[in-house]
C-alpha cells in the first residue's frame, strides 16, 4: 500500500517538498556566505584606513568610512543571521544532519575576521612602528572562538553525517510518522470522497435506516433528510 510505505520509509522529502527544501537550503547557504564575505571585505576596507571610521552625526569626522561600509556592516550581520536560520530550517527539512551545516557560519565568521586582525596586526597599513598588539590579541581571540567549534565540526563522523548522511539517519521519528500518517489518511479520505465509491447495498440500507431514524427523532429536518438521502443514493449509483 502506498500510504504505509510512506509512513515507515525514508524521511527524505520527495517531489515538490524536496525542491522547496533544496532551494531554501541553497538560498540560506549562499546568503550566509555572501553576508560573511561582505563583512570580511568591509572590515578590511576599514582596517585599511587605520581600523576605525565614522560617518554622519553633528561632528566633523576625522576618519570617514569608505563608501557603503556604514550600512554594509549592520546589513551583513543581520542578513547573515537570517540566512543562517534559513539554511538550518530548510537543511533540517532535508533530513539527516544537513541543517547542522549552518553551524559552520560561526567558525567561518570568526576565522575570516580573525585573519584580518592577524594580517593587519602584523603589517598595519601606513605605520612604520611594527605590529599592533591589540589587533594581534583580537586575532588570537577570534582564532580560538572560531577554531574550537571548527575542531568539533570537522570530526569525521560529524562531517560525514552533514555531507553524506547514512540511511539510518532517515528513519522516521515517531512524531513525523504520526504527521505523515495523518496527512496520508486525509488524502485517502479526500480521494475516496471525490470518487464517491459505490457502497455495498447492505451498508447503504443501514445508512438509509440511520438517516430515517435521525429524521424521525428530529435531528434532521425534511430538507436535510432529502439531501442526505439523495447523496447516499447518488453515491451508490455512481
Amino acid at each position, binding site marked *: 500500500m502506498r500510504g504505509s510505505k510512506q509512513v515507515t520509509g525514508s524521511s527524505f522529502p520527495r517531489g515538490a517538498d524536496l525542491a522547496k527544501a533544496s532551494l531554501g*537550503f541553497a538560498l540560506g*547557504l549562499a546568503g550566509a556566505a555572501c553576508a560573511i*564575505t561582505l563583512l570580511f571585505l*568591509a572590515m578590511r576596507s576599514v582596517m585599511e584606513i587605520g581600523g576605525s571610521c565614522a560617518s554622519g552625526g553633528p561632528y566633523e569626522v576625522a576618519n570617514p568610512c569608505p*563608501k557603503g561600509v556604514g550600512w554594509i556592516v549592520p546589513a551583513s550581520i543581520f542578513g547573515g543571521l537570517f540566512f543562517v536560520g534559513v539554511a538550518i530550517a530548510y537543511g533540517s527539512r532535508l533530513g539527516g544532519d544537513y541543517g547542522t551545516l549552518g553551524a559552520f557560519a560561526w567558525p567561518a565568521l570568526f576565522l575570516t575576521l580573525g585573519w584580518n586582525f592577524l594580517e593587519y596586526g602584523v603589517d598595519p597599513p601606513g605605520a612604520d612602528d611594527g605590529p599592533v598588539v591589540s589587533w594581534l590579541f583580537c586575532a588570537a581571540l577570534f582564532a580560538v572562538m572560531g577554531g574550537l567549534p571548527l575542531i568539533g565540526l570537522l570530526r569525521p563522523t560529524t562531517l560525514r553525517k552533514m*555531507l*553524506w548522511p547514512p540511511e539510518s539517519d532517515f528513519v522516521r521519528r515517531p512524531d513525523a510518522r504520526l504527521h505523515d500518517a495523518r496527512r496520508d489518511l486525509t488524502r485517502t479520505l479526500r480521494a475516496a470522497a471525490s470518487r464517491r465509491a459505490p457502497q455495498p447495498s447492505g451498508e447503504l440500507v443501514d445508512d438509509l435506516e440511520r438517516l430515517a431514524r435521525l429524521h424521525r427523532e428530529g435531528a434532521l429536518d425534511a430538507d436535510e433528510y432529502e439531501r442526505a438521502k439523495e447523496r447516499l443514493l447518488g453515491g451508490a449509483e455512481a
Partner: protein
Amino acid sequence: MTNAARLALLLLIAASIAGGIWLGDWLFEVVTS
C-alpha cells in the same frame, strides 16, 4: 536516499557557498565603487 541524491546535494552545497562568496565580492565592488 540514493547516492545520486547525496552527490547532488553535496554539489548544491558547494555551489551555493561558492556562489554566495562570489556574490558578496561582486556586491562589495558595486556598493563601494
